[in-house]
């Protein structure tokens, strides 16, 4: 009898001391991790991968220079992954985006360097070209009913051919325009005349970002509380915010003692913020999740499925063009091999970031985490001078483990 009673009243014991309070927080943390295993998986993977490289390279991974380099390396994949996430939520796929990126970089280089057109006008023309490509593929998928896999596989052939064709006479084109190169090689300017030993603007932006993050989190938590939605306990919540803030500030400090925030990071940040807002706060975003979750129900609920799908393909191609600019900018040149397997990294990023294989679920912010998983692997293995063949194998293994884990945890 006594045992039964003690089982029934565990709460009293819990409140007796602070020791048991930490115990209950720990318990909550464990259940939280268990129930949300798939959404924490990528953070866990990222941390493990980074630590492994840090040790293996003998401390070369977490240097100011390398972190800056990682951001610049990852930028074009991140931009592609944002577009790809939307395509994947809709249960489509875009295999052509890699070569659309490659072609866009090449055309931009030709316009600037060969035709002598102003850099901004060149980029505008290329963006319009990409939009037209998006319309073309979107048209085939929505109006002709050709599966996206086929449409974009064909596109992959076509744009690869166009890319090779466009650079056939000139070969690799060296880009000399400083503004263009600045996109993936430049840094935000600091306040002139300061000699603090670190980049002040970077730290100001980081602190503002952290404050904004905390404010948004608190507001959202207050809202959830107000409507009795389930929320994490205060200790877990505070711990989580500390962790995120620490990561932001550390990363910012690493950039600040180098040359500051890379322009590429700003470009990715702006695009990411726009797309994250669109997906979570606007009608278009709701419609995208609706179509992914149940396209027939969405259609009967008044969602214009074709229009939304068309948007997704157009946005993908335009983002591919931006990715092409970033890649070309980083290399300072447009080459016929640009675009090879870009779509693979983008798709892998999206899935590692928790986009559901069955569609309807996915976040662009998490896709970026996925990008960093993939690009940390590339970056770390490059530091270790591991042969590219092994790099592909390792990336493939990490990718399939991530997706297998996700599929399994969704079944439960």
């Amino acid at each position, binding site marked *: 009898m006594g045992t039964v009673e003690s089982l029934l009243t565990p709460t009293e014991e819990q409140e007796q001391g602070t020791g048991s309070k930490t115990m209950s927080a720990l318990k909550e943390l464990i259940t939280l991790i268990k129930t949300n295993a798939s959404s924490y998986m990528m953070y866990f993977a990222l941390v493990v991968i980074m630590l492994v490289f840090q040790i293996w390279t003998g401390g070369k991974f977490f240097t100011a220079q390398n972190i800056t380099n990682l951001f610049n390396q990852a930028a074009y994949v991140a931009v592609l992954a944002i577009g790809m996430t939307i395509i994947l939520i809709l249960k489509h796929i875009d295999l052509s985006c890699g070569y659309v990126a490659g072609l866009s970089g090449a055309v931009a280089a030709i316009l600037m360097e060969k035709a002598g057109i102003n850099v901004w006008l060149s980029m505008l023309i290329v963006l319009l070209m990409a939009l037209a490509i998006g319309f073309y593929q979107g048209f085939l998928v929505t109006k002709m009913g050709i599966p996206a896999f086929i449409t974009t596989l064909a596109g992959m052939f076509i744009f690869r051919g166009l890319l090779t064709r466009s650079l056939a006479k000139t070969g690799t084109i060296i880009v000399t325009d400083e503004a263009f190169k600045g996109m993936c090689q430049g840094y935000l300017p600091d306040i002139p005349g300061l000699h603090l030993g670190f980049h002040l603007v970077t730290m100001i932006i980081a602190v503002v970002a952290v404050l904004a993050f905390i404010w948004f989190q608190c507001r959202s938590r207050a*809202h959830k509380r107000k409507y009795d939605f389930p929320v994490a306990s205060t200790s877990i919540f505070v711990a989580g915010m500390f962790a995120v803030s620490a990561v932001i500030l550390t990363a910012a400090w690493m950039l600040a003692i180098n040359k500051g925030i890379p322009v590429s990071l700003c470009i990715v940040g702006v695009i990411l913020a726009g797309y994250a807002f669109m997906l979570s706060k*606007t009608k278009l975003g709701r419609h995208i999740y*609706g179509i992914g979750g149940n396209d027939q129900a969405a259609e009967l609920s008044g969602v214009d499925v074709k229009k939304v799908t068309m948007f997704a393909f157009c946005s993908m191609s335009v983002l591919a063009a931006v990715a092409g600019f970033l890649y070309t900018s980083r290399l300072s040149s447009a080459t016929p091999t640009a675009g090879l397997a870009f779509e693979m990294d983008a798709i892998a990023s999206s899935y590692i970031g928790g986009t559901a294989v069955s569609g309807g679920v996915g976040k662009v912010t998490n896709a970026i985490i996925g990008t960093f998983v993939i690009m940390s692997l590339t970056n770390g293995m490059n530091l270790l001078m591991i042969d590219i063949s092994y790099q592909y194998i390792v990336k493939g293994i990490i990718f399939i483990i991530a997706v297998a884990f996700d599929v399994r945890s969704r079944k439960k």
Partner: protein
Amino acid sequence: MSDEYILEMRNIVKEFPGVKALNDVNFKVRRGEIHCLVGENGAGKSTLMKVLSGVWKYGTYTGDIVLDGEVQQFKSIADSEAKGIAIIYQELALFPELSVYENIFMGHEIMKGKQIDWNETIVQSKEYLKKVRLDVNPAWQVKRLNTGKQQLVEIAKALSKNCRLLIFDEPTSSLNEDDSENLLNIMRELRDQGITCIMISHKLREVTAIADTITVLRDGSTICSLDAKTDDISEANIIKHMVGRTIDDIYPKRLEKNVGNVMFEVRNLSAEDRATGRQILKDVSFNVRAGEIVGLQGLMGAGRTECALAVFGNPYKYKITSGDVWLDGEPVHFKTPKQAIKKGLAYVSEDRKGNGLVLIQDVRYNTTISNLEELINKISIDENKEIGVANKYKKEINIKTPTVAQKVGNLSGGNQQKVQIAKWLFSHPKVLILDEPTRGIDVGAKFEIYSIMNELVKQGMSIIMISSELPEVLGMSDRLYVMSEGKITGQLDIEDATEEKVMKMAINA
């Protein structure tokens, strides 16, 4: 253990996180009887059958399953099948592209050496088809058969596995009256051949017609077992046990009727299926007035759903060959559901999981998806307002969910249906089309949905109710149309309508 019982389930307890789905259930089935299992949705019928068939394997529940006097420990469906237990599910598990005989012997093919003996397969499948009185060529692809016939194929498949205990989960929920009657007859024949049948059903009329024994479950517990020969098995008595109260009136009465002008009218609508060229609607005309419930009755495949969809923006792109539609005195021509919704039409789908709801999204999402415009503040959705709206409907139409952040897929059928209704109420329609609004939901939830309908027409809305359940149409409508083979075959005022009259119109094309 006497030989009288083929199956005894003793003290079965099955828990899911947070819910006790089965709480000490006892369930005994006599050899060679038809045993009906009834109860509201969520009473635990399906869970009990899943325990029996090994879907919830041994060890995930407590209690004993005793088959022919032996305690069984099923680890999989294959284990229970090996002991002669087979389930015919509501959603059929056939391969539409394969032939009837391939389907029947799928998984236990007849072999001659290393190869399948197709000749023997066809010969044997003919015999099994005869047993279920299905007169079709076994070489036909299953997709050529209608749902009723497909179900018979499914039964033939079970028989071919030498099953002794056949479980039917809502077998008639998607069948028309004829096919239902046929199925019940076949169940009787199977019983006479010594096969024990368990039937889960919401259709009490069928239950009372066919059962030898009726077991009632409520909230995961056995309430009673009624013997058809000795106990009172009237529908009223069964309902009393199911809900724990007597429902004096299944259909709530409307006290005041104030029917207004014609709100919605369809004239001479004809349509064809683009793929097959089959005419699905022939010269269909009907109307509904403000504050009126109009029933659209007919057998399965009569074209009622097609008719509703053709006017609701034609999402499946039927080829409309003629016809005009008027809404609130204006001629309208909707090219997409979006346009139809904007002008005040709403369609509650018969297939809430298939094309009614986004199951992986929450109650709030599903409630507001059709009318997000109303929640937009500049360019973003005002989530405070949105949750307010969802909570309002949760309260008003009594959606049972802890919060509106609950995924719709986790709700019971009745509550899912209420979410569908909430979605359309929030789009503020003038005309609400309800397609099989109470299919597969329990008595209590049905009553609530009827009450909501009455409240809506009181406020002046027009309702078109499509339903296969005759008593429901007769109980709720002010006026009804009967369809058969794509045509309107009759119109009746409720005062003149009897089941016989309606059935006659529904059968006679």
